[in-house]
């Protein structure tokens, strides 16, 4: 058991630590939670100070007076604790004068009853001096209001701890440290008070709660200095998450595990053309069209079309399951991503595809066929036929581009590297027999010359164009194209070198910029096809001058899992 001197020393230490904590918190009074924390520390100091005065007083009247005055500090603590927890965790909408006044009713009544207890005995039924441990201490028997204020104190303490407990599991070390420091600092005196109420303390008449405020002060100071309490606060988190939900471009509807709508953002309300207050609490099936066809989790296989005619919009609908800590389902979030513009662009491409694939090709063949029938000089007829052939070549290239886009959307398909290389090289050798086309494969750890290496099917069009360009435009006396593929663990590098005239700077500049202008543009679609195809295959492309003349085009693409894997 503590000697009187030691007890006083401990209490004074509590006062030092509490006062320091209060002043440090007051300095940060513009930070969320700082003012309630100051009030809480001041309450603790008040309680401790008058506890010492009670302890050192000689008469029953003086001890009882100081004991009654302690209530001012005692009742401030739980109210300040709850307000602190609310402000600190960003729930400051509850920290309004009317709520503070409401929370202060019981404390004010308590202080009033303490001051007038002699007339009603509501707070204390009996007060007397008893000798315990060789010294005289005050022994008071709690009245009905004593238990009311005790229950109220514990209730506010519990309510304040709940939001802070959420921070203990935070990913942020400072917030975990802060909340742990605060919880330890608050639980220590409360635990000692529980022991006092249960009669499990060495001196039954001596409430050790203020003594444990030394622990609180140290914990709070630790949270302030070590974990930057009031310097870094999570109060923005709560609001920010809500703000992200409200302002996100996608519509989002939250449903509970029984498929009732419990929340939705403004965007979702606009998409579904509903008023949130009308549909919250309603069955989701009545609010979201085709709700019953949505998957349990993941993206819906079909787009959701809302509205009619030209004003209709299409949405990708995704369901994200929400589960609690133990993995039990709590409901889900249904998000609506507007894909109308994307689909419209796709439709336009399909129309262009049809025009290129069918109309231009047909008309070009018609021009070519009729040119033979024209009664004119041979050179003019040949010029018309060459022109028609070039139009057809461009339309073929455009079709290839559209094919690449189409293949790029079909994820999961793959071809072996050896098949791609052989197809390209063979085709170019056939079309350009005068050009020597060398193929070399460095298989890396693949013993079968690239047959076990899978790549995106888009690579076929890309390589075909690279090799063909190198051969077609090669005006060297001894035209040559070298294709060298090197396999590595993470990807494949295909290097196509030639001894031709090289690629002009303005063509390369357009590729590097990523767009063309009316004045600065390429001569056709070939290079764009190579660049877009490489991009679709998640690869990268470099074009360099070859030492001794010509160009080196290097395409690097990742290996992908083959269809059988």
């Amino acid at each position, binding site marked *: 058991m503590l000697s009187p001197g030691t007890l*006083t020393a401990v209490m*004074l*230490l509590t*006062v*030092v*630590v*509490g*006062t*320091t904590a209060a*002043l*440090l918190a*007051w*300095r940060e*009074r513009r930070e969320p939670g700082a003012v309630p924390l100051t009030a809480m520390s001041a309450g603790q*100091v008040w309680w401790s*100070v008058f506890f*010492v*005065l009670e302890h*050192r007083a000689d008469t029953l009247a003086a001890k009882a007076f100081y004991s009654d005055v302690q209530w001012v500090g005692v009742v401030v603590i739980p109210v300040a604790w709850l307000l602190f927890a609310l402000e600190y965790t960003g729930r400051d909408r509850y920290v309004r004068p009317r709520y503070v006044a409401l929370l202060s009713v019981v404390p004010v009544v308590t202080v009033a009853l303490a001051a007038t207890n002699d007339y009603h005995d509501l707070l204390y039924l009996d007060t007397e001096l008893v000798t315990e441990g060789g010294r005289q201490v005050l022994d008071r028997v709690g009245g009905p209001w004593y238990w009311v204020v005790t229950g109220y104190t514990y209730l506010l303490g519990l309510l304040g701890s709940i939001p802070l407990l959420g921070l203990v599991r935070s990913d942020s070390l400072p917030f975990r440290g802060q909340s742990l420091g605060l919880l330890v600092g608050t639980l220590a005196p409360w635990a000692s008070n529980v022991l006092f109420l249960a009669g499990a303390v060495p001196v039954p008449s001596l409430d050790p709660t203020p003594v444990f405020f030394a622990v609180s002060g140290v914990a709070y100071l630790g949270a302030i*200095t070590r974990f930057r309490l009031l310097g870094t606060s999570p109060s923005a988190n709560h609001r920010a998450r809500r703000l992200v939900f409200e302002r996100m471009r996608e519509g989002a509807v939250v449903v509970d595990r029984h498929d009732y709508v419990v929340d939705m953002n403004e965007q979702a309300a606009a998409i579904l053309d509903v008023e949130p207050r009308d549909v919250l609490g309603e069955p989701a099936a009545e609010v979201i069209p085709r709700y019953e066809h949505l998957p349990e989790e993941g993206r819906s296989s079909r787009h959701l079309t809302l509205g009619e005619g030209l004003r209709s919009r299409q949405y990708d609908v995704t369901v994200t399951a929400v589960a609690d800590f133990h993995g039990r389902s709590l409901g889900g979030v249904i998000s609506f991503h507007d894909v109308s513009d994307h689909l419209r662009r796709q439709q336009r491409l399909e129309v262009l595809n049809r025009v290129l694939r069918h109309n231009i090709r047909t008309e070009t063949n018609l021009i070519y066929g009729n040119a033979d029938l024209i009664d004119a000089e041979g050179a003019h007829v040949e010029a018309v036929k060459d022109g028609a052939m070039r139009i057809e070549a461009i339309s073929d290239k455009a079709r290839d581009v559209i094919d690449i886009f189409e293949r790029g959307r079909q994820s999961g398909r793959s071809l072996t590297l050896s098949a791609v290389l052989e197809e390209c090289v063979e085709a170019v050798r056939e079309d350009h027999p005068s050009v020597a086309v060398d193929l070399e494969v460095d298989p890396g750890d693949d013993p079968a010359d690239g047959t076990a290496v899978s790549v995106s099917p888009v690579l076929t069009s890309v390589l075909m164009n690279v090799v063909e360009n190198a051969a077609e435009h090669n005006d060297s006396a001894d035209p040559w194209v070298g294709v060298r593929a090197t396999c590595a663990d993470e990807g494949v590098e295909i290097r196509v070198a030639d001894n031709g005239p090289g690629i002009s700077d303005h063509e390369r500049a357009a590729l590097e910029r990523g767009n063309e202008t009316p004045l600065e543009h390429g001569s056709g679609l070939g290079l764009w096809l190579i660049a877009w195809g490489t991009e679709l295959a998640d690869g990268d492309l470099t074009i360099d001058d070859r030492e001794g003349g010509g160009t080196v085009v290097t395409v690097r693409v990742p290996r992908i899992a083959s269809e059988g894997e």
Partner: protein
Amino acid sequence: MSHEPTYAPEEGGATGRRSRIVDLLTTYGERAGNALVYSSAYLAAIAMTEVAIAMVLLSLPPNPAPVVVGLVTFAVYTNDRVADADTDAVSDPDRSAFVRRHRGTLYLLASVAYGLAVAISVLGGPVALAVTLLPGAFWVAYAADWVPNLAPRLRRLKEVLVVNSLVVALAWATTVTALPVAFTDAAVTPATAVVFAYFLLRSFVDTEIPNVGDVEADRATDVATLPVAFGVPATRRALYCVDLFTVGLVGVAASTGVLRAGPAVALGVGVAYSLVVTGLLGRADDDAVALASECEYLVVAAALVGPLLIA
């Protein structure tokens, strides 16, 4: 390879070491001096001396009052300097730079000091506690700018001639006199009133002397002080009058037996020192004169203790 002693480099080395030691001592001494002056720690020491003088004058037994007053003085003045660090940048750039550099540490030290003062004052009972808590209440209110909101007239006291210095002097005299009395449960006697009046007069002088150096700043902020209102020579004369009034008070107290002869002489020595310092007003460096004025209590303490040591 030569093994002959090479005295010259060793001598040079010894000189170098001495020089480094001197440099180190100078550097750290200067830093310690700056810390003492800029952090207001020296004011705390002077305040403790004041309480010790009051205890001797009132024949009070040893008690923690000087420590409490020292801690409170340190806390309040340090907090004041931390709060005004930015506005002091023009009038006292060195102090402002020091305070800004150690702002966090100084505030923490001030908080701990005030916490210690409150804790110790609890041992003196509720009156001692109340006297100690009062500066803290002003600390909180001033920092929150509550004073102008709640009491515009109170705020304007700072601008009223004589009243501003009188309020500060009153606060000092009350703390220095009341706290040791409260700690020892001593009765309030005529001697208590004389000691209170003595510290009131001395603190008034101590408050007006630094105003001579702040004439421009006070004029700019409409704060009326003696040098602003009447000029430095008139201030000097007014403070001579206060000094002489103090001499009269001490003389009457000694002649009527309220004060013993020894302490009365020591107070007289202090006032004589003050007359010299007041005479330097406007004729020497303002900061040096202000510092010298604050050291009056050290002179009184020396005059009180000196004869005892000699005996």
